[in-house]
């Protein structure tokens, strides 16, 4: 693959992450509406929301510091960076070599760190509350994420996502208990990290239980648009991470295979949306003090996955 083709694939990957994320979120919201017997807004509604927010003025609090103003760009940038290293349409992703799965976790960490800082920056009580909750969840979710990452990289003897994808693609009959455990752990982590229902509710504003919405409550205009967009991309990035780790079939290895890979990714994302909504509809939001148990379960599953890799394989 020459340099031009590499650049082309990378550009497509970045464009996919940035542009398809609102579409994916629109699909999830649409399904959610249907599952609750409501009429859904069009699948393009997230784009319209973003456009509206981009065209509005920014209203800054008087005591907002540079942290508050810089955070939307930092968060958007890190999540986009995370999306650009996950080989979801082609396993020959040039940027994939620059960040492995552990660096990916660190990227999410940076985004979260800045979001939490921005939540506290203006000094409203909701922001501080959201930040402290977010940090509690993060401190519990990160060990589980890392354990999952380690277990997956134990298989392919590499932490690089490209190598993992190629390794899993090369297996003929693949029924591995540790992968199953890690898969379930990953679903739990994904729900927690992207702020979906059992942990956080993405649709509530001004509720005492909010976490992510609490932190970005003071944002408006362009800043809010970037934060929301980053949130959508985070869901998309986690879904594509799931695709890359657990169902990498069809991910192309050259430019010619990319259109077919795109089609498969679209199908897989459609299915992931259905799964996410089924989980969300079937569960009630947890009390915040139950969240440690929820994430403890994720950690336990990931640990069991690692153990059964040694024990059973």
């Amino acid at each position: 693959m020459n340099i031009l083709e590499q650049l082309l694939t990378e550009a497509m990957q970045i464009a996919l992450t940035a542009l398809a994320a609102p579409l994916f979120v629109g699909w999830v919201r649409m399904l959610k509406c249907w599952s609750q017997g409501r009429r859904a807004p069009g699948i393009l509604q997230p784009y319209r929301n973003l456009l509206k927010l981009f065209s509005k003025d920014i209203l800054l609090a008087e005591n907002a510091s540079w942290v508050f103003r810089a955070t939307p760009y930092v968060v958007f940038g890190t999540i986009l960076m995370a999306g650009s290293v996950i080989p979801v349409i082609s396993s020959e992703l040039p940027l994939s070599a620059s960040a492995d799965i552990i660096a990916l976790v660190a990227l999410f960490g940076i985004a979260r760190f800045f979001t939490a800082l921005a939540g506290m920056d203006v000094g409203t009580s909701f922001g501080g509350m959201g930040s402290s909750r977010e940090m509690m969840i993060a401190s519990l979710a990160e060990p589980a994420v890392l354990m999952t990452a380690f277990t997956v990289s134990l298989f392919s003897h590499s932490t690089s996502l490209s190598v993992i994808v190629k390794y899993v693609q090369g297996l003929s009959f693949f029924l591995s208990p540790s992968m199953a455990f890690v898969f379930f752990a990953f679903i739990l982590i994904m729900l927690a990290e992207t702020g979906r229902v059992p942990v956080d509710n993405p649709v509530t504003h001004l509720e005492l239980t909010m976490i992510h919405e609490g932190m970005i409550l003071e944002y408006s205009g362009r800043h809010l648009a970037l934060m929301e967009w980053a949130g959508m991309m985070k869901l998309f990035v986690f879904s594509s991470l799931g695709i890359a780790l657990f169902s990498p079939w069809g991910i192309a290895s050259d430019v010619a295979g990319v259109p077919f890979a795109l089609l498969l990714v679209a199908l897989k994302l459609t299915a992931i949306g259905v799964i996410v909504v089924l989980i969300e509809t079937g569960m009630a939001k947890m009390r915040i003090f139950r969240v440690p148990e929820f994430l403890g379960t994720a950690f336990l599953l990931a640990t069991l996955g690692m153990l059964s890799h040694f024990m059973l394989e």
Partner: protein
Amino acid sequence: MTHGISIQLNNFLAAFILLTSFALLAQRRIYGLLVIFAWQGFFLSLSSAIVAYTADIRHLYVSAALTLLLKVIVLPYILYALINKLNIFREVEPLVNIPTTMLIGVALVIFSYHLTAPVRELSTLFTRTTLAVALSTVLLGFLMMITRKKAVTQVIGFLAMENGLFFAATSATYGMPLVVELGVALDILIAALIFGIFIFQIRTTFDTLDLTEMEKLKEDS
């Protein structure tokens, strides 16, 4: 190739048995416990059927069928009836909090992995890798008996332990002889019935199923 697939399937089921053991430790509701226990029995019976098919051992089919009948249908039903009769709907009360129990459980799994290492080296059976899981299932059932206050949950812990023993027999030696297997099955059935009566008696005598109450049986000194 079929051999390779059955090894993978068996390992997969072993992993699920391990998972259900942990789920038993994590579950707070008694009905939930019963459902998980039934699932564990189901995976167990499926695993023995696979071993029977792969190693071509007839009597293991009988064991698998017995497991399916007893541990998936009869025992959960008896316990269900018992729970309904006793009106126990409250949550399970663990002595040690659940995350700690889980961590102890992980330690037990590592312990049993090391304990079974010599057996794994010597054995030539294709099920040898699942022995560690079997031993951890026994230990986790044991842990459940230790960390729960209520008699019914302790009984479920005991039955989970027996599941582990059965699984250990299958993975270490392709199952016990049929006579022994039948004897054990009958034992378990009788045990469950006796437990039922016993628990009922505890309830009528002490007005509770909390076994810490039984410490009051001591004479005052």
